[in-house]
């Protein structure tokens, strides 16, 4: 069967170590595989490794699967794993972070390896799901032993960016970037998988409306993302339906809590956000249900945490949003010394998250009702990130961001969003408002190493409760997954918004 699908953009590179980004890795997951893999509900299951064992706090032994072939016929073995690991550490690699979780690999035999980590790492197998194995021989033959750098100078250096040779169920047979990628079924695939698809055609379509039209007109079998407002249309149209569910991405608002004076505000000489009451006032002014209902058409899940239920370490206890209570909000503002509110500038991307700009507008409206007059600066993501990111000194006072932890683990959130900003330790990189609490910093450090799940969860819970009390962030909701499929096509909708072709079954 032929399966045609579309996403809003194309992958940048076919190099599995070229870009550490969910769509790219998910897309390549049909061609390449890691030692472990995600099941359709994001549970870790064996991939190219049959089993693993934590033999010492920093030592893991992996048994590799035997008889696995690369698409070009090469065998998969321990040398490939070692090669891959080394490759991820080369300068062009964007998987250096993952590579650095391993300090050494010892080949025990062709299908057994011993992995050494620099520190105890309870989630190593989880982190290896997107750590795709490449064939040593093939890479050497094509002069691709180093990860292709975005800086690469010529076409030969980017061979691996334009060609693929994995162990996955699909072989890339033709590719024209931005136009079309065609895959055929790999007949020697090691695993029995549900799909009956023999050929896959992937076309990126940047405009949501066009994507939806192409689905309804029957030219495509599956598209995503579908603009949420078009769900009704998909439901009423014949032969197609929307496929939705909560995504593992949380949308939230952040506030500048470190500067002594806000960059974009009429309050001079002090920073209102340093006052917990002001932050709380903001939290109580925002009606998450209204946003969900009107902007997200009821498809979002209002959130109290920066973490979605699908993520390892999620704690339902803390997921209750701040109550919508404008009166309380006004009262808090008055107490904090802003009875008439204040003016505030807000930064917002307008092409990054589902209805991002619309959400920001709604927030602006809601804040206006308690007297906080927000000036919205909505920009495309390139400009937005260039402005608010730490490279530019976090040039913002109030911003909207969305987050999916790439490792599907809570530590990633603690580390990137909740920890204090620290270049040396590389923490708080996405903590654009530079919220800072030393206890949380401490916890983040410990959680990384704690291998005991129960203890780990307790620490996490403490961090969450601190954050919530501090009102360090204003979580909005879990963004919805929004796919559209042709009737008769069944597939698994993964919460990380990845389409795994292994589960696609095309019927009539």
């Amino acid at each position, binding site marked *: 069967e032929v399966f045609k699908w579309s996403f809003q953009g194309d992958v*940048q590179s076919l190099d599995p170590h070229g870009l550490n980004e969910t769509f790219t890795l998910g897309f390549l997951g049909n061609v390449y595989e890691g030692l472990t893999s995600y099941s359709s509900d994001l549970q870790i299951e064996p991939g190219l490794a049959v089993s693993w064992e934590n033999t010492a706090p920093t030592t893991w032994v992996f048994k590799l699967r035997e008889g696995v072939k690369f698409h070009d016929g090469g065998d998969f073995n321990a040398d490939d794993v070692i090669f891959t690991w080394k490759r991820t550490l080369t300068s062009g690699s964007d998987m250096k972070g993952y590579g650095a979780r391993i300090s050494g690999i010892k080949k025990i035999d062709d299908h057994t390896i011993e992995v050494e980590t620099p520190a105890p790492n309870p989630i190593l197998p989880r982190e290896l799901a997107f750590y795709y194995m490449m064939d040593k021989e093939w890479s050497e033959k094509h002069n691709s032993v180093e990860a292709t750098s975005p800086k690469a100078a010529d076409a030969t250096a980017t061979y691996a960016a*334009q060609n693929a040779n994995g162990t996955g169920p699909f072989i890339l047979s033709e590719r024209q*970037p931005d136009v079309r990628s065609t895959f055929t079924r790999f007949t020697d695939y090691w695993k029995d998988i549900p799909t009956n698809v023999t050929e896959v055609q992937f076309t990126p379509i940047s*405009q949501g409306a*066009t994507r939806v039209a192409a689905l309804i007109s029957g030219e495509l079998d599956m598209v995503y993302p579908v603009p949420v407002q078009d769900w009704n249309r998909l439901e009423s149209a014949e032969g197609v339906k929307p496929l939705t569910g909560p995504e593992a991405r949380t949308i939230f608002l952040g506030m500048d809590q470190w500067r002594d004076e806000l960059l974009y505000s009429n309050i001079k000489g002090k920073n209102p956000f340093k006052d917990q009451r002001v932050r709380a006032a903001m939290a109580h002014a925002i009606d998450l249900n209204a946003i969900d209902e009107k902007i997200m058409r009821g498809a979002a899940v209002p959130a109290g945490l920066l973490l979605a239920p699908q993520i390892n370490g999620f704690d339902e206890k803390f997921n209750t949003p701040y109550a919508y209570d404008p009166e309380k909000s006004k009262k808090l503002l008055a107490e904090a010394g802003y009875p008439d509110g204040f003016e505030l500038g807000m930064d917002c991307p307008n092409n990054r998250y589902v209805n991002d700009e619309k959400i920001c507008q709604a927030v602006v409206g809601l804040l206006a009702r308690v007297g906080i007059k927000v000036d919205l600066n909505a920009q495309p993501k390139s400009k937005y990130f260039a402005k608010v990111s730490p490279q530019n000194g976090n040039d913002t006072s109030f911003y909207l961001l969305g987050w999916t932890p790439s490792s599907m683990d809570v530590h990633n959130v603690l580390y990137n969003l909740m920890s204090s900003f620290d270049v040396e330790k590389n923490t708080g990189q996405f903590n654009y408002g530079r919220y800072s609490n030393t206890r949380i910093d401490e916890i983040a450090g410990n959680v990384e190493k704690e291998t005991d799940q129960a203890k780990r969860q307790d620490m996490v819970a403490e961090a969450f409760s601190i954050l919530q009390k501090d009102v360090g962030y204003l979580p909005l909701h879990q963004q919805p997954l929004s796919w559209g499929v042709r009737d008769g096509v069944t597939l698994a909708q993964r919460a990380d918004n990845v389409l795994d072709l292994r589960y696609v079954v095309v019927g009539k």
Partner: protein
Amino acid sequence: MFKFVSMRLLQSIVVMLVVGLIAFGLFRFVGDPINNMVGQDTTLAEREALTESLGLNDPFLVQYGRFITKAVQGDFGMSYRLRQPVSGLIAERFPATLELSLISAFLALALGVPMGIYTALKPKSLFTRGFMTLSLMGVSLPTFLIGILLILFFGVTLRWLPTFGRGEVVDLGWWTTGFLTASGLKSLILPAITLAIFQMTLIVRLVRAEMLEVLRTDYIKFAHARGLSPRLINFSIALRNTLVPVITIIGLQVGSIIAFAIITESVFQWPGMGLLFIQAVSEVDIPVMAAYLLLIAFVFVVINLIVDILYFVVDPRLRVQS
């Protein structure tokens, strides 16, 4: 003639150099490319290293100098976004854009010119009024709206035409064409119409305005007095006398379709240069933008050269100078 053309081509080099210079001056306002090139787990230090290694921290004149030095050797660098040589990317996209622009320019001309003449000859007729109103609606509705409406009607409701892409293309080695397959031709229809509407309206109105004046001249009167056929008078004598501004505008329009058919190409996911360009802008793909702008500068110089030569062909009175 030879001197004229070679002078122009020489000037085009200057134009391209200036375009490059301005381009590099403005790239820093487009956004930060790094964020799109790395994953979220990449550390700040690594980001900084990448920025440094791409030379993005250098003053723009240095970046420009580096780019030009390589460009004269035929190396336009690698696309940040697609990790491919820019020259190859552009060469890949060029046929799609050119075919689309030519078809829509042809449509616009084939409809616009006769309609312009008709509406000038019969300014009061009901058809004229209806047509002028309709064409203006076509202009005032944004391209994306028209595109989507066409898709909805012909693609979704009637299912006659494809909603996106270029269909099957035939690869001639140095050129890919959609003209040779049924699906290629079908795919062309909607984007070409979308693009043509604006051009057509402009041409209709321009031809009409100029015709109205020319039709009142003495030489048209004398042509009538000689009993020449209306076809000869309207299409040969009168039309030709309206051509100079019309050619100018057509040249500019064809140029800007080739260059910036951005909205149409993205609505129809047409794999052309406009789409490439807008994506390059949104992802701050500096090498693509730079090479692309140079190419466009060249395209415009050439088109305007052709237009200037056409002036001489059309109007002998202009030949004395130069």
